[in-house]
């Protein structure tokens, strides 16, 4: 287990940052409340109390920042929540600076009966900034699932999405992705082929590809954990067979789309077009290589495909175009 794993709280089963952050939040808030109480005539004890809570709040903030930064470095550069996380960090640093100046300005003035005005003003601004930042922190966890289920993951998470243009497809519709060695057992890769986003895993030497988004609430399967030939979604623990995409444990109820993979000379190739719901049967494989005009041979589970991608059954020249993902 690396230092980063420890800072991220993996042995604890929850992000360390989240556990520690209660202290600076509560103490900074209390400090402002005590300042107000001091103005209302609470006396020097209250004023001193405000200083002490500020001091301990700052210590807590420093302790919270380190694991927080370890969490930040795990967020994929192209993650939708990356910008929120950056703002969260910047606002936190800003509020800490404001509090530190507030404390510095009043330190040692223990006999005051009420808080000095400018430091108090700085504390109040710091509180507002911290409030916004705290809200963003809540968004990161609850709206974007940052850090959720991460402790189950042993291998590092994908740092970026491997993005490949659909035009890179060869005659059979496969595109080259990465070397097989890049996807070691237990590790995942997040791949975008012309807009189709998939997770790649390697189980018992075999590379499997399936849709990135869990069919429960669209959680990131590339951040999940692989166990017994199944991928576990980090958010709510739905599990799917990596080969067939079939859901093995809820709360998800819908199977994943799976995509065909090939290994050619140590390189992994995937085909984003014409995904199958199960391992391709001979008849199905033949059909995918010869897209024919208009013949509808619905297989199990493609009805919802038709709803999502109504153009799927139209004749076209290449399997990739079946997905209709060409930029308009």
């Amino acid at each position, binding site marked *: 287990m690396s230092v980063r794993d420890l800072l991220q709280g993996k042995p604890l089963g*929850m992000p360390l940052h989240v556990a520690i*952050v209660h202290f600076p939040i*509560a103490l900074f808030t209390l400090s402002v409340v005590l300042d107000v109480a001091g103005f209302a005539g609470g006396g020097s004890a209250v004023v001193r*109390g405000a200083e002490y809570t500020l001091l301990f709040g700052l210590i807590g903030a420093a302790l919270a920042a380190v694991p927080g930064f370890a969490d930040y470095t795990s967020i994929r550069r192209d993650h939708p929540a990356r910008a929120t996380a950056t703002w969260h960090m910047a606002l936190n640093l800003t509020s800490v600076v404001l509090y530190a100046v507030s404390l510095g300005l009043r330190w040692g003035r223990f006999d005051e009966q009420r808080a000095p005005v400018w430091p108090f003003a700085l504390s109040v601004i710091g509180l507002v900034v911290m409030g916004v930042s705290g809200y963003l922190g809540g968004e990161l966890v609850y*709206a974007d699932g940052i850090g959720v289920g991460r402790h189950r993951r042993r291998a590092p998470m994908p740092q970026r999405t491997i993005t490949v243009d659909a035009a890179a497809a060869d005659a059979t519709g496969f595109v080259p992705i990465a070397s097989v060695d890049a996807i070691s057992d237990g590790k995942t890769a997040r791949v975008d082929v012309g807009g189709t986003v998939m997770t790649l895993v390697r189980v018992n030497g075999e590379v499997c590809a399936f849709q990135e988004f869990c069919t429960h609430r*669209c959680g990131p399967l590339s951040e999940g954990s692989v166990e017994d030939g199944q991928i576990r979604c980090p958010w709510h623990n739905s599990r799917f067979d990596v080969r067939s995409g079939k859901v093995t444990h809820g709360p*998800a109820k819908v199977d994943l789309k799976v995509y065909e993979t090939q290994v050619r000379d140590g390189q992994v190739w995937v085909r984003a077009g014409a995904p199958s719901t199960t391992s391709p049967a001979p008849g199905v494989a033949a059909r995918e290589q010869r897209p024919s005009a208009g013949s509808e041979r619905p297989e199990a589970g493609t009805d919802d495909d038709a709803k999502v991608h109504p153009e799927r059954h139209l004749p076209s020249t290449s399997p990739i175009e079946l997905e209709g993902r060409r930029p308009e």
Partner: protein
Amino acid sequence: MLKELLQGKWLGHPVHPALVHVPMGLLPAALVFDILSRVSDSSTGGAGAAMAVTSFYCIAAGLIVCLLAAPAGMADWLQIKPNRPAHGMGLWHMGLNVLGLVLWAVNLGLRWNRLGEGAHVPVAGLVLSVLGTGLLVVAAYLGSRMVFGQGIGVARFSKEKWKRIAAAGGARLP
């Protein structure tokens, strides 16, 4: 409706975890200030007395927010299906928190009339702070496992946003 309000639909994410930051920080901080007050000069106006006063306000403020956090937590818990592991975890979490709340309230009551004096925190108060903090930490840990281990509240209100991202990524939707 009240349940949606308590669950934080207006905020876009659960309210209970946001509110619990306050007691979760202040109540253990009260314990720290209690300890410090007992090792410091406790004459009137001394550092020890200031610590005791600070500790008092930590407990009082913490408890007030607890009373707000509890119904929000209940609204969240009612959302969990009884067959899920998080349902039982939530029940324990609630029970330990309620017990802790009682101990902290008694703790506050003990100190209520002693605030003006330069006295340090009474031993009984310190003991209750230790017990109360212990219960809180265990309950809070359970809470964190509910979120980070079971995903309670995760993507509850952001489902539509993620569905859009998933659809754009060619995925089969829930």
